[in-house]
């Protein structure tokens, strides 16, 4: 019965946005993006901050359900703990859209998140660019986790797309800086002449920087992922060459736009990837504030 | 017709030791066959071949003339062999009832039938007149009671062969009598009984035949009526004239003084003193509170009131460490649980109490420790392949010697000995008595707790008799007799605790 009412250009529609936490600039940006889009779309956007508290978030969503909002945007604190909340929304047949993090259960119309595959691909292409030719190594994240899988997939696609650069070693360092250091040291034993390293997150990349010390960034190119402050610093210092930054504001705006589509009964993709950006010495200043 | 049990040419080697060397043994139904031998002679090892704990390296075992293979305790049980081990083999966390029927719990519909088990246990305990509740956990029992539970456990299977490895070591007079009644009953039922003990009078009282072992070798098989001197000669290889060679030395100034020591429900206003050169004996029946008294004096248990003075100094914060530093030593009655440190070597165990004294700026004088240990091993004639041997592998009696040696090395000026010769062979006993003499002559004092009355009467200069947690009376060496002691001891029992 609801949803058809898209006639009067969405007026009176209300969308609930439940954010995992706002003590993190990434999610603040996500909210801003959503609010901007809401203004453009002319809908009312309710925002709640779960402060990284799963059960708090359940209550937030429960409130949205009782307030009969037209759609719920949820950025789960925990993709497992969120399931009951989503199910209760499903029960009241309010469409739910997941932002940045997926949900492990319940019916989610669409999941809008950074495109880790694309990020991995960009990183791969950048590394090929930097290295030119020769062997490179990959530091994998925790086996079996989504980011590890997607970033790895993208990276391999980029490498397979050409044949000047090949992957001589690919080992897991579990997203951990210390293991990044150890594994890199070990890889350097078996393949002393690697020209570059792609680490599936910046922590491991910074570990690699330690392992290579003065060779880092110069003789051996290092590309990371996530654009954490330490990594941006390293890029400025030239010990790292590049990393991948996500675009939280876009996740927010796309969330609202697609929520409207759903309300108006249009169908949307099950997964909506959001562009990621390559950070290099040239543009690093844009990301450090 | 062939004997009930026959062991031929049994040999058992352990790293560094040949415990048994081609030993023969036989047992008739309805006979009590005593195994006699010094500590470390191989008695326990021999019977462990029958109970399935060890397998012989050589030799064969025949039951009713049929060769049998006893690979596990289960095998032994199915052959009708039941064993009371020298070391306690109870599960402290479990109840008396469950320990008795361990591995054989009565079941209904595949489930353990508690009620039934409890009933059977109570029935059994009453039959052998042990006053413990089937529901008590073993950890709450004293050594004496534990021993009785072990006996009940062994009796709970109707065995054709019953093996008893020093069952009387931790029992006092009347309990021993109770045990012997049971044994006589079993003889009626043609049960064959292997009986190990270091008390020769028990041998004559209950035994039919005696097999003597020495250094793991078969010495001889004689009727139990053989006189003690002869038995001792076979065991030790030399005659022993005086079994209680007490050499009194004129007692000097008071070393240890205990003033009105009391602990709720355990000790009641106990006062005693030990002078230099004196052996003070404490007699009493099990449960009298002697062990508790000893522990209280040594600071091992808290007390409600009372003072302990050592050489004129009041021991303020009563802890074992303080007591030790003041020069008190304590040989506990529970050797396994409180005496030895099983994984450590003989030398390490010997050095334990003197460790602190041999430490300079935090560093232990290990060479000295080791040298002293080696000397002590010789002085006490401890049977061990070497000072490095883990003490858990020593025979019971030899472990006891090590525990005593530990305190000798800590040169304590007052030694509290709780059942010091429990499980120690006649020869070694005399050695320990001689040691007590040397100690007292060198001006030390000894407080000797013992359930072995002849020992108390033989060695003590003064006898304190405990009952119901209080000192019921004191007897001078001259006037003390079994009767007088027992009279005093039982006077306490109506007020007995626990």
């Amino acid at each position, binding site marked *: 019965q609801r949803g058809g009412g898209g006639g009067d250009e969405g007026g009176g529609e209300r969308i609930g946005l439940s954010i995992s936490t706002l003590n993190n600039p990434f999610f603040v940006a996500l909210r801003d993006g959503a609010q901007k889009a809401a203004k453009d779309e002319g809908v009312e956007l309710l925002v709640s901050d779960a*402060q*990284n*508290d*799963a*059960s*708090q978030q359940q*209550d937030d969503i429960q409130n949205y359900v009782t307030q009969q909002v037209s759609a719920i945007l949820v950025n789960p604190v925990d993709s*497992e703990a969120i*399931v*009951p909340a989503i*199910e209760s929304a499903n029960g009241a047949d309010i469409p739910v859209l997941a932002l940045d993090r997926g949900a*492990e*259960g319940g019916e989610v119309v669409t999941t809008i998140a950074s495109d880790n595959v694309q990020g991995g691909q960009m990183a791969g292409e950048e590394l090929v660019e930097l290295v030119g030719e020769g062997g490179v190594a990959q530091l994998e994240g*925790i*086996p*079996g*986790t989504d980011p*590890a*899988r997607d970033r790895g997939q993208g990276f391999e696609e980029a490498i397979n797309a050409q044949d000047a650069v090949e992957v001589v070693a690919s080992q897991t360092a579990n997203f951990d800086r210390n293991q990044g250091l150890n594994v890199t040291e070990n890889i350097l034993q078996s393949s002393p002449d690697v020209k570059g390293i792609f680490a599936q997150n910046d922590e491991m990349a910074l570990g690699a920087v330690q392992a290579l010390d003065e060779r880092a960034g110069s003789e051996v190119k290092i590309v990371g992922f996530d654009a954490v402050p330490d990594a941006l610093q390293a890029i400025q210092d030239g010990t790292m060459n590049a990393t991948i930054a996500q675009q939280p504001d876009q996740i927010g705006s796309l969330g609202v736009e697609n929520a409207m589509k759903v309300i108006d009964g249009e169908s949307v993709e099950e997964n909506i990837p959001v562009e990621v950006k390559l950070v290099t010495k040239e543009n690093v200043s844009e990301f450090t504030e | 017709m062939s004997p009930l049990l026959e062991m031929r040419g049994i040999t058992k080697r352990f790293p560094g030791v040949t415990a048994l060397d081609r030993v023969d043994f036989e047992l008739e139904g309805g006979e009590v066959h005593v195994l006699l031998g010094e500590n470390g002679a191989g008695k326990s090892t021999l019977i462990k071949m029958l*109970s*399935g*704990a060890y397998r012989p390296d050589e030799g064969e075992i025949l039951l009713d003339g049929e060769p049998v293979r006893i690979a*596990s*305790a*289960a095998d*032994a*049980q199915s052959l009708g062999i039941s*064993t009371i*081990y020298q070391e*306690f*083999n*109870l*599960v*402290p*966390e*479990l*109840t008396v009832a*469950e320990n008795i029927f*361990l*591995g*054989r*719990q009565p*079941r209904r519909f*595949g*489930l*353990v039938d*508690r009620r039934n088990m409890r009933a059977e246990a109570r029935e059994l305990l009453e039959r052998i007149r042990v006053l413990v509740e089937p*529901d008590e*956990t073993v*950890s709450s029992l004293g050594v004496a009671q534990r021993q009785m539970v072990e006996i009940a*456990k062994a009796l709970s299977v109707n065995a054709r062969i019953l093996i008893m490895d020093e069952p009387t070591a931790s029992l006092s007079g009347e309990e021993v009598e109770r045990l012997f009644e049971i044994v006589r009953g079993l003889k009626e039922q043609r049960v064959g009984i292997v009986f190990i003990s270091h008390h020769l009078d028990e041998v004559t009282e209950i035994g039919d035949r005696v097999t003597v072992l020495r250094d793991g070798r078969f010495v001889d098989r004689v009727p139990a009526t053989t006189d003690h001197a002869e038995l001792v000669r076979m065991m030790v290889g030399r005659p022993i004239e005086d079994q209680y060679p007490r050499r009194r030395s004129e007692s000097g100034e008071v070393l240890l003084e205990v003033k009105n020591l009391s602990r709720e429900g355990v000790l009641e206003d106990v006062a005693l003193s030990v002078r230099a050169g004196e052996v003070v004996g404490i007699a009493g029946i099990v449960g009298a509170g002697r062990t508790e008294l000893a522990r209280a004096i040594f600071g091992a248990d808290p007390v409600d009131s009372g003072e302990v003075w050592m050489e004129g100094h009041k021991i303020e914060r009563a802890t074992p460490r303080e007591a030790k530093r003041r020069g008190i030593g304590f040989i506990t009655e529970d050797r396994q649980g409180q005496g030895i440190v099983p994984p450590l070597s003989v030398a390490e165990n010997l050095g334990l109490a003197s460790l602190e004294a041999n430490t300079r700026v935090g560093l232990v004088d290990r060479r000295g420790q080791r040298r002293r240990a080696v000397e002590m091993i010789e002085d006490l004639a401890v049977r061990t392949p070497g000072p490095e041997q883990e003490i858990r592998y020593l025979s019971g009696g030899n472990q006891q010697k090590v525990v005593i040696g530990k305190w000798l090395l800590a040169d304590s000026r007052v030694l509290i000995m709780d059942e010091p010769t429990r499980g120690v062979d006649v020869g070694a006993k005399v050695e320990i008595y001689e040691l007590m003499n040397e100690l007292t002559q060198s001006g030390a004092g000894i407080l000797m707790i013992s359930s072995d009355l002849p020992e108390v009467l033989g060695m003590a200069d003064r006898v304190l008799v405990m009952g119901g947690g209080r000192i019921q009376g004191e007897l001078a060496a001259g006037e003390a007799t079994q009767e007088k002691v027992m009279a005093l001891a039982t006077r306490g029992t109506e007020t007995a605790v626990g």
Partner: protein
Amino acid sequence: MASLTERVNPRELLSRGGPLGGLIALCVVMTILSPYFLTFNNLFNVGTQIAVIAILAFGQTFVIVSGGIDLSVGSVLGLAGIVFGWATAVANLPLPVALLLGIGSAALAGLINGALITLGNLPPFIATLAMLSAARGLALVISGGVPLNPIPGAIRTLGSGDLFGFVPLPVILMIVMWALTVGILRSTYSGRCMYAIGGNEEASRLSGISVDRQKLLIYTLSGLFAGIAGILLSARLASAQPQSGFTFELDAIAAVVIGGASLSGGTGTASGTLIGALILGVLRNGLNLLNVSAFWQQVVIGVVIALAVMTDTLRRRRKG
């Protein structure tokens, strides 16, 4: 002592079933501090959240009572989930077969633990540590590192459905497993053997108990319980995750030990373990409700665990 008579009425529990006192105190404090805490909804919520750990911990109880330790339960849980997921989502086998395979693989892992310990003569810590690594690896190999779904609806209901419209099925399953554990520990021959072996292995052997066979059984049971927990978890997540169960072993062991069992064996009860799991669950749930910052949460958890258990041990000591 616990082994003697584990009744389930509170007074007994107070004296043997571990730190019930601590749990009650904790609940009282939470009720005072947060209006959300003492609601049917939230309590069932806690129950649902601890169900998986509790079932793991029940299996662990067998092992710890018998004087061993099983570090592999977390990984084995993951393995069971993946095998089950593979059987349904990839091989499209009928549900019963899939369940059999999932739980069976876990039980097999447990059996191997037992074999390594008895035949291989390895310390339980090493044997199960090896399995911790191997089982996790296998789960990754089988799944290719990706979550396997969909999980059949029937199973998903087990994760999210409820009885009489308000008792969550995971809680039901947990209670069933608890009862089963109580029964095994109290009334079966093997249960009694666990206490005996844990209390004095040599004495047990000399009493004719075939210790090795019992140990094989004990570790197999632990694996079996881990398998059931694994199915439940993938039911709740509506997907089988190769990583699920990571570091659960610590929670499981903690629940057992907080519940009053001793790692040296011979003591421990199912009810104690349940209380241990509840303490952990209530604590985490409560800290969320009070929305304590993530960092301080860990500090508080540490402090509260210590306090909760102390109430227990100090009381015991007072009792002498």
